[in-house]
């Protein structure tokens, strides 16, 4: 059996619906990823626990609330503290372009602002792993 890339798709916080996250999950499945889909309203503690138990390669957050900067900063710190520094964090949702450099600088591996095509998401995700293979 080959080693499939495992992705956790999560929606932290209380905002909105999960239609977008669901569609991305389906697109990733169709690109050959194993996607752990957890629906709405996770706390960061839950996301960390799930990522640990599922030993995922990527955490993908869908954030519409505008709180992407503090959420990512906090989660990245928790990932390091909980011994998950190898997991890549990627973010999608409502992300203003001017915030992308700050996200990358704090350690977010890739940013997919609303409107990014599935092809771009898929190739962006795969590119995360091509560097080391």
């Amino acid at each position, binding site marked *: *059996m*080959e*080693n*499939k890339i*495992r992705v956790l798709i999560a929606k932290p916080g209380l905002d909105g619906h999960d239609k977008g996250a669901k569609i991305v*999950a*389906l697109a*990733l*499945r*169709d*690109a*050959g*990823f*194993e*996607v*752990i*889909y*957890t*629906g709405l309203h*996770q*706390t960061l*503690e*839950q996301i960390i*626990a*799930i990522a*640990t*138990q*599922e*030993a995922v390669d990527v955490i993908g957050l869908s954030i519409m609330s505008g709180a992407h900067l503090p959420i990512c900063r906090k989660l990245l710190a928790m990932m390091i503290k*909980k*011994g*998950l520094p190898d997991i890549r964090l990627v973010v999608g949702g409502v992300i203003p372009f001017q915030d992308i450099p700050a996200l990358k600088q704090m350690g977010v591996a890739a940013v997919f602002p609303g409107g990014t095509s599935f092809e771009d998401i898929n190739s962006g995700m795969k590119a995360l792993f091509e560097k080391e293979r």
Partner: protein
Amino acid sequence: MPDRSDFIKKILAGDPGAGARMIRLIEADDPQAFGLLRALYPHSGKAFIIGITGAPGAGKSTIINGLITQFRKQNFKVGVIAVDPTSPFSGGAILGDRLRMQTHATDENVFIRSMASRGRAGGLSRATRDAALVLDAMGHHILLIETVGAGQAEFEISYLAHSIGIVVVPGSCDGIQAVKAGILETGDIFIVNKGDMGDADVSAHQLSMVIEMGKARKTGWNPRVIKTHALEGLGLAELAAAFLAHRDFLGTDPDPDKTRKERETLYFNCLVRELAMKKLGAFMETDPAYPEIINQLLAREIDPFTAAEQVFKKIQRKMTHGK
């Protein structure tokens, strides 16, 4: 991997990160997995393994969520393996079972692992069984395994689980289907879920009658029928008690070794077969005779039956005379 013995120690101490990484090695068929499993094996065999199966959408994950709550009340450490189907088109999968178990995500005494079926008809692979061994060695007292709701799964889970719950929905004729499929023999506890949706009493009654008719069970356990409304947590305490009663029953079973023998033999055969397949794979990749035989086949210079025998004999020779 940093340090092998340290890694094993961590798994045995129940470290979720180490356990999770071990299961990944198993899924990836990593060469280290075999030896690590060998080291974990002596520490396994203590968990009580419950299989939950039934048609897609019947409520298996929601029921497992409720069972976790019940077992946690009694201070059991609970491990869950939830299998969802792999897409035959892309090889990818959506693993959504744990969505229904969210409230237990941060409980340190609950470990939930989603698994893709990766093309097995019944969704259970050796990887599932080996993952169960890991959760067992980590010290979980009770394992709950959710299969994909396909007919074949009922048979496969019976070789892994000590106790099997089959989930049916009122009015779905699942009872009759179960008779037709011959899975009645594998069910220890029948769960009529979604009691709010239809006449659960009728379904439960029909099931009881069918079970009564087919009561030629080798173990002497009388299968139970339990009604639940899993969304509201109704009937879950009774269900948890029924599984524990079955566990106690198995503890006093005059002939427990019979099913055990079947189970262990099947697993062992499967393991040997896989090792043999690896040898075969290595042969096909490296031996120059193999592409030659394929060419002969394509040119119809040889028939596939003779060819298969030839290949097998060659492998046999290789195995007996040096590597």
